[in-house]
Structures are given as structure tokens and as C-alpha cells.
């Protein structure tokens, strides 16, 4: 039996109805680097949360070192010798390196007081043994991102972890730091550790791993020895075969530009590359433009800029020819923006509030008479939306009682009610079932059909290919591919752009000139 064996692991998130893991099998051999790859939402992170005890599987078994185990919480995982470095570090900035490392299993003096000297000594021993270059007495907030990651790794080693899970460890690192990390991983391997590497970067997979498990849509689609595959095959396995979505797009002459982005950039001090790098983009009336990309490559930032929630560091944005770069969300809506956000449970809806209050939020001023909200008007308006969009809900119900699909329908209903000529959709079908997704697609095409400009930001290639007239691909904040959606365009090609294997753009900006500090 392999070192770590997972059998028939199934995990359903009841709130959103997402089946994150569907009868997943994973087998990791002792002393190997095993890569788990897949697009966003493929279920990699969920699977690792189950190994680390952050979540419990609904079905399936986990065997670790030939023993059946039940991992109730991270403490249990730690006791078994399983450690995890999360994508977002879990460190206390105001504590020193040593304090962070020992946190939760501090050496004690007389059973009560923390023994700082022993802590520093022990941590230093781990650091020296593995050739890290961090001072245990420095505060974590003064470290670089790469060093913080080293602290996280030291934290695992201090707890004698034998199986190390790293969740997208390179996503925040510079090139040199990545090299450094790879050295460390090689070093750990020599000392007999086993490593699971979660990533969607194919370079790392082919360079570092022995074996690779590919996940898509909550299932394992392939397990390969790394030396037997090349990047192109991995990319194809990750994105899957073309699924023909049943939508009837129909040709449509495009009209005037409604939305235009000119050289939009967002850069932050202290960051190696800009989050958005000179984005140029036009959406014409009657046109549906799709922006594809893997999460973390600038999709969320574009959404925020167009929605007015984040001001770009440079560049201009025009809506119906009007310069709207400096306008906030409310003013943009007055000019004519409708916007269905990716984060529908937090940004798009207020779950404790009633469906009524959710529906009128963008236009409650319309229901005022002498400063008082007219309840009858609000009720009628909400009922109309519920009927037209066949939302399964009562108007007085808290939005949180609705299913994921119905929440999205409610948001759509509200946004489409404004009849604006431009609408932004961000990840509109993420986590929705097929029927609800189909409904969203119909509404999008309906908008396009009546001459509105539609911008679809999505990491789901199938829907981009099925719906968009023109496609832009974002990689590391840049538009690396720009193409019309013709019959010849295949998912593989877009997939290669998305994963950085193809790049039509000029070289990226090297220098970050801005002095803006980003959060």
C-alpha cells in the first residue's frame, strides 16, 4: 500500500451545492514529490483540506502509512506527521520567527512560562539543518514573502512533519525565490520527506515532481509519471475536451463601443510585477467579449476596476464615451453599468437581508415619496422580478435561505432590471448546476441580442468558447492572447495561453513606477 492512500473521497458543500470532490482516489508514494494540478475549482484545495483535517469527507477512506486514519482537525494531522503550507500564510506579523514557529507547541519553563531561549535554540537548529537563511529573532513582518514561506516550512519541520503539503507555493514568489524553494524541496526529499505540491503551473510540475494527479470538476482525470508526459498533454488533461454548451449565439453586427479600457494598470510598491499591466479592451454594443484566465492572473482586478471598487494606478476607462476612471460604483451605475460580481454571496447579495431589500439596493431612491420608502411599490417590484426570473423565493424571505442558483437569479434580476446598455458578468456560473447555468447563458445572450455590450470574465473555458464573440486571455496581469471566436479556435489553444505556454504580447513592464501601497 502506498504512503498516503485516499479512496472514494467525496465532499459536498451543502450551502453552495458544489460537489467539490467526487469519488476521488489519490495515492502518494513515500519520498516522492507528487503534484496535484487542475484549474480553479477542480477540487485540489478541498482534497488537501481533507488530508490536513480542515474539513471532513462525506464519504471515502484515508490511509496513512498503511493505517486507516480519521483526521478530525489540523492537530490530529500534525500528530500524524502531516504538515501544510497554505497559499495565504498563517503567521503573526508582530511575533518573531521563533515565536511563530513554536506557537501552539511552545517549550515550557516550569510547566507554565514559555521558554524563549530553548525556542530560539530549537528553531535555529531546524533552520541550520536545512540551510535556511532566516534569523529566528526577527519579526515576521520585516521578512520578505519568500522568507515568510520558509518560516511556514520550518514550522512544519519543527513539528516533525513527514508529509508536507504545499498549496500553490510559488504564486507569491519572485523567480529567484522560486529557485530557492525548489532547492529546499530537493533538500527535503533527500532527507526522506514526502511532498504534495498543489499548483496550476506546468513548468513546476515537469521540473519538480515525480508523479502528477490531474483533477477536473471534482474528479481525478489522470495520474501519470511526470517523465511520461509533456506540458501540452497536461494542459489538455486539465481543461478537458470541448463541451458543446447548448446555446444559440447567432451572428450579430457589432455597434459602437460601450466600454473601453485604455492602458489600465494596477501596480503596487514592493511587488515584482503589476497586478494589471496595460490592459486595452473594447466592448461594442451587441457584442459579447470574454476574458479568460486562471484565477490570480488579474481577473479579479479587472472586475474591481470596471465595477468602480478599485481605482487603477494608471490608464483610463470610458463608458459610452464618457471618461469614468475616477467614478465610484454608485456614479458608474448612474452612467449605466450593470454588474454581476463573482463573489455573489458577499458582494452581490446581503444574505441576512430580505429578498426585497436585496432587490432594491441599487435603486431604492426610486421608491421614495417624501423621504419614505413606499412599501407597496417595493413589494410589487420584487414580485415582478421573482415572477419574470422564476426565482424560487418569497419576497420577505432572507436571501440566505435561497439556494445558490436562486441567489444568482435574484442578482441577475436586479442587475438586468436597470436596462443598462453595458453589463459585466464575473464567474456567473461558478458552482451553479446545469439548469441555472443555462438560464444565466440565455439571459446573457438576450442582453447581447437587444444590443447591449456584455463582458464575461470567466475561468470556465467552455462557457467562454460557447458565448463570446471575441476572447482575451489574461496571464500574470497581461493580455497574452486576443482572438475572434471562430470555428477553428479550440480549447487547447486558449488553455495554452492561460497557462503561459503561448504569449502574443510584447514584453512585460519591468519597472514598477508607482508609489501606491496595495493591501
Amino acid at each position: 500500500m502506498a504512503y498516503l492512500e485516499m479512496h472514494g473521497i467525496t465532499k459536498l458543500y451543502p450551502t453552495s451545492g458544489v460537489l467539490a470532490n467526487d469519488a476521488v482516489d489519490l495515492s502518494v508514494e513515500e519520498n516522492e514529490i507528487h503534484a496535484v494540478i487542475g484549474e480553479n475549482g477542480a477540487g485540489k484545495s478541498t482534497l488537501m483540506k481533507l488530508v490536513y483535517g480542515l474539513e471532513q469527507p462525506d464519504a471515502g477512506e484515508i490511509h496513512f502509512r498503511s493505517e486507516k486514519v480519521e483526521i478530525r482537525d489540523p492537530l490530529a494531522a500534525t500528530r500524524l506527521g502531516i504538515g501544510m503550507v497554505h497559499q495565504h500564510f498563517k503567521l503573526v506579523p508582530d511575533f518573531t520567527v521563533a515565536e511563530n514557529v513554536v506557537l501552539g507547541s511552545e517549550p515550557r519553563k516550569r510547566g507554565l512560562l514559555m521558554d524563549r531561549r530553548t525556542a530560539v535554540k530549537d528553531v535555529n537548529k531546524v533552520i541550520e539543518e536545512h540551510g535556511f537563511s532566516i534569523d529566528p529573532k526577527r519579526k515576521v513582518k520585516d521578512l520578505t514573502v519568500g522568507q515568510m514561506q520558509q518560516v511556514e516550512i520550518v514550522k512544519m519541520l519543527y513539528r516533525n512533519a513527514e508529509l508536507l503539503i504545499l498549496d500553490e507555493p510559488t504564486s507569491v514568489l519572485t523567480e529567484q525565490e522560486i529557485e530557492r524553494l525548489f532547492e529546499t524541496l530537493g533538500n527535503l526529499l533527500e532527507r526522506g520527506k514526502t511532498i504534495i505540491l498543489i499548483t496550476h503551473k506546468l513548468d513546476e510540475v515537469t521540473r519538480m515532481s515525480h508523479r502528477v494527479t490531474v483533477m477536473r470538476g471534482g474528479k481525478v482525470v489522470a495520474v501519470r509519471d511526470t517523465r511520461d508526459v509533456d506540458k501540452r498533454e497536461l494542459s489538455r488533461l486539465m481543461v478537458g475536451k470541448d463541451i458543446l454548451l447548448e446555446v444559440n449565439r447567432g451572428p450579430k453586427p457589432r455597434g459602437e463601443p460601450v466600454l473601453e479600457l485604455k492602458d489600465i494598470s494596477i501596480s503596487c510598491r514592493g511587488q515584482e510585477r503589476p497586478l494589471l499591466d496595460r490592459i486595452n479592451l473594447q466592448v461594442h454594443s451587441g457584442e459579447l467579449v470574454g476574458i479568460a484566465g486562471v484565477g490570480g492572473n488579474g481577473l479579479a482586478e479587472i472586475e474591481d476596476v470596471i465595477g468602480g471598487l478599485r481605482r487603477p494606478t494608471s490608464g483610463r476607462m470610458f463608458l459610452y464615451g464618457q471618461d469614468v476612471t475616477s467614478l465610484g460604483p454608485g456614479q458608474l451605475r448612474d452612467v449605466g453599468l450593470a454588474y454581476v460580481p463573482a463573489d455573489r454571496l458577499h458582494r452581490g447579495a446581503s444574505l441576512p437581508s430580505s429578498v426585497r431589500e436585496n432587490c432594491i439596493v441599487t435603486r431604492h431612491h426610486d421608491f421614495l415619496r417624501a423621504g419614505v420608502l413606499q412599501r407597496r411599490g417595493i413589494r410589487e417590484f420584487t414580485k415582478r422580478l421573482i415572477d419574470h426570473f422564476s426565482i424560487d423565493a418569497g419576497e420577505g424571505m432572507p436571501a440566505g435561505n435561497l439556494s445558490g442558483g436562486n441567489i444568482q437569479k435574484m442578482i441577475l434580476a436586479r442587475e438586468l432590471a436597470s436596462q443598462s446598455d453595458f453589463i459585466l458578468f464575473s464567474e456567473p456560473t461558478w458552482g451553479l448546476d446545469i439548469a441555472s447555468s443555462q438560464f444565466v447563458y440565455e439571459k446573457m445572450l438576450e442582453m447581447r441580442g437587444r444590443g447591449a455590450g456584455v463582458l464575461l470574465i470567466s475561468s470556465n473555458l467552455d462557457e467562454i468558447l460557447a458565448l463570446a464573440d471575441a476572447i482575451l486571455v489574461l496571464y500574470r496581469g497581461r493580455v497574452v492572447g486576443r482572438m475572434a471566436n471562430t470555428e477553428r479556435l479550440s480549447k487547447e489553444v486558449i488553455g495554452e495561453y492561460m497557462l503561459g505556454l503561448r504569449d502574443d504580447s510584447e514584453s512585460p513592464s519591468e519597472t514598477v513606477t508607482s508609489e501606491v501601497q496595495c493591501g
Partner: protein
Amino acid sequence: MDRKRIANLLSSTTGLALTVGISFAIVVLLILVLSEQPGTAIYYFFVGPFTNAYYFGNMLNQAIPLIFTGLGIAVAFRSSTFNLGGEGQAYSGALVATVICLALPTLPGFVGGTAAIIGAILIGAFLAGLSGFFRMRWETDQLISSFLVSSAVILIINFLVTGPLDDPANSMLTTARIAQQFQFLKIYRPSKLDASIFFAVAIAIGTYFFMQRTHWGYEMRMCGINREFSKYAGINVGKYLLVPMAISGGFHGLAGAVTVLGTHYRCLKGVTAGLGWNGIAVALIAKNNPIAVIPAALFFAYLDAGAKAAMLHADVTFELAKIAQAVIFFLVTAQALYGLFNSRKKKVTT
């Protein structure tokens, strides 16, 4: 109102009744152990406030400023802004109202009284608004800034009341007495109860209406529930870090003015002490519902009146009275808080 909501309401009311019952039982136990004449003590503690017009009227009178501070906290909390500076705001309201009345002793009663109340509201709104402004501008913590501003203001007012504004003709640490025409009408002699109780009830109902039915109230509530959502929808979220604070401070200033114009007629040192903190407790019990603030304030005043009666008529000491009060209040607030957190947790998981 659907059945589920009624069931919810019932369970929360029975829960509250149970908590009150348990806390009363503990108090009875305490008195039984510590008092030589437990029968009398218990009788006056619980029934005392209703035994004569004087006690009863004073109890109602004490609830008036608590209604205002409770409303102030409820409005702030509903909007997810935090005002811990109620003590200083109420005290400054009391001082400003007194100073206006003393400075313009010849004004007709209504004009001068109104001016005093408006002045008090403005000073409270300004002090709390400062914290709102700081948070809007520099994202400072409202809990801390409002508390610090208030603490400083209390010291300054103490200085003024005992120094430059001290009334030499009086041996107490206080300002001079305001003129007769500014004093609120007594409506239930011999008690101190004055006409502003009607005003307080009307304001509570008005606040409820404001929060539920006007678009400012709607926007404030939406910001309180989910600021990200409100911003996305185009609500000016920055404004609603300041406005609810200013309203909250205004209510506290008003509470201070009412204390002076209705009960004490002068700004004694520490005349409003406790109003700010007790307002928070009142708002917690009322679950930030403006209408429910009225019974919550009355409940608080009842406990206080009971403790006072027990001290006068039995051998209950000041300390025992305070401990008994604290036990009841601690449990009731804990229950209110528990409900609050519980409902939040439910919202997240369902």
C-alpha cells in the same frame, strides 16, 4: 409574519423570561444569605418601586435618559459603527445645556430650552462624529477613539464644573441652578417624573420608523449588515461611518440635556455618570430594536429603583444592592449577546 418568525420570537421571549427568572432566584439567594431581615429586603427589592407614587415616578423618570442613550447605541450598532464614548457625550450634553440656560437667563422657557437641547445634541454629535470621521479618513478603531475622546472630555468637564463654573453659593460640586422657566414640567408629584417621558417614547417610535422606512435608515442598515455589498451597490459607505456615529452622539447629548432640564436643574459633577455604559446594556437587551429600547430602559430603571428601596427599608447595603443588580444584568446581557452571536452564526452556516 410567518409561523416560523412567531416561533422564533416566542422562543427568544421565553428564553429571556427564563434568564430573568434565574437571575432573580440568585438575587433572592444572595439576600437570604447576607441579610438579617431577608423578607423585607426581598419585598422591597422586587416590589418596592410599585409601593408608592414617589418610587414609581422616580423609576419612570430614571428610564428617560436611558431610553435616549439606548437609542443612540442601537442606531450605531445597527450600522456596524461603535460608540463607546457615551459617557463623555452625555456629560458634555449636560454641561452645554446648563451653560446655555445660565448664559441666557432671560429667554422665554421654550426658546431657551430648545436652544439648550439643540446645543447638547450638537456637542454630542460632534464628539462621536469625530470618531466617525477618523475612521472614514484613517481607518482608526472607533471603539478606541470614541472611548479616548470621551475619557478626556469627562476630565475637562470635571475641571470646569468644579473650577471656573462652580457655584460659590453652593457647597456641592456643581454649577449654578438654571432659571425656573427652562425646567421641564413635573407631571407626577411628588416624584421627579417630568413631561419628557412622552418625548422619549415618541422619539423611540420615530427612530424605529427612520431606520425601517426611510432610505437613510435603509442605507445605514445595509452598511451595517454588509459593507462590501453596500459599496458594490453604490451606497456611499464612507458617509455611513460618520452619520450613525453623529446620530448616536446626538442621542447621548440629548440624554445629558434631559437629565439637567428635567431632574437636576444644574450640572453636578458626574451628573450623567453611568448613562453611557448603561445605554449599551439597554441596547443589547433590546437587540438594537428602537421600540424594544423602551421596555429595556424601564427594566434597568426598575432594578435600580428596587435596589434603592431595599437599601432604605431593609439592611441591604449599597454593595449588596449593586451586586444583586449586577448579577441580573450580567445574565440578561449575556443572554442577549448569546442570541446575537447565535443568529450571526446561523446566518453564516445556512
